[in-house]
């Protein structure tokens, strides 16, 4: 009886290892199929390589702390509400409102700043915040964008996201 159990256990063990081997082979075959039929598109790889220029250890990153898409309560009847975004880094807050018509924003504490609208590694537009820290411009580019703000004291870059 005990022998029989041992034998069965050994047999199961064998099947188990066999199955695992088969699984591994099938996974590998599937990996090759993915590399052929669904690879990273070449232009995307290039964009990611070019994105190296975006690293800047001196800039402060302003993290997204509010996004109406995630944190907002949908307003009934409004089909295309403006996207409200708030970015914060120590001591600096940037509020941005994006609609199909354009982008308006407020820098806090209020003050003048030069602003670049970044579309990936490329600069999309240049805006200026007035003495009250207000700025406005055309709608951000399709795809992910970020704002680089140069105030008198610091360079702040907002977290990347799609409008």
């Amino acid at each position: 009886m005990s022998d029989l159990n041992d034998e069965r256990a050994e047999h199961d063990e064998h099947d188990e290892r066999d199955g695992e081997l088969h699984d591994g082979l099938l996974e590998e075959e599937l990996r090759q199929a993915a590399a052929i039929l669904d690879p990273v598109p070449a232009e995307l790889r290039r964009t990611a390589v070019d994105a190296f220029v975006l690293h800047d250890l001196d800039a402060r990153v302003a993290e997204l702390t509010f996004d109406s898409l995630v944190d907002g309560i949908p307003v009934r009847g409004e089909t295309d509400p403006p996207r409200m975004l708030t970015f914060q880094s120590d001591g600096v807050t940037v509020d941005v409102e994006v609609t199909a018509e354009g982008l308006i924003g407020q820098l806090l504490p209020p003050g003048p700043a030069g602003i670049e609208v970044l579309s990936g590694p490329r600069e999309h537009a240049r805006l200026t915040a007035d003495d009250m820290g207000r700025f406005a411009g055309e709608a951000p580019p399709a795809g992910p964008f970020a704002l680089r703000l140069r105030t008198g004291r610091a360079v702040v870059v907002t977290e990347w996201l799609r409008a």
Partner: protein
Amino acid sequence: MNGLLAVGTTRSTAYDGRSYTRGGTVDRADVGALVQSAADGDAAAWKSLVDGLGPLVWSVARSHGLSDADAHEVYQTAWFRFAQHLGRIREPEKTGSWLASTARHECLKLLKASKRWTPTDDPQLLDRPSEERTPEESVLDSEEAAAQTERVRLLWQEFEELGERCRQLLRVLISSPPPSYQEVSAALGIAVGSIGPMRQRCLRRLRARLEARGTK
């Protein structure tokens, strides 16, 4: 007694082999060092990171049933954020998981946005493979390789017809080089411990489909 002990030992070895020494762990050993070099200004190190981890990021975008355009944006956003956070990531050796989790959150956000604004926009319907042929595909089209092409297409077709959960898990698992289970966990928001059993079930389901079609 001896028999039992032997079985126990074999089993734990097999388990270790499966969970902890997937190719990914070895291939990923240098990630921390590459991240450090890139943060110090080494563009070649950055390129190596893009080539080593890009397919993982892409697989996360592809596994969430997004449109092609949205998948492209997820991939880009993940890399732009990584460039922005280069030199600030607390555990550089876990960059694969960081990128996978960043991509996942972006996917969930886009899915939410498309549901809210375009309820009729079925991401599954939009998710058509690109018509453009890759160089690898063109090579496969040559006469000699016709049989292999057929086999690859059939395999992919059956893969795409698996249930959503299996398709999602396998799409990330088969990125190249093989991701670690930590990375898969970050990519899909599932516990590391459940990946092995799910993987086994999904691969066996796929094999059953292939057998039913008379291949393999």
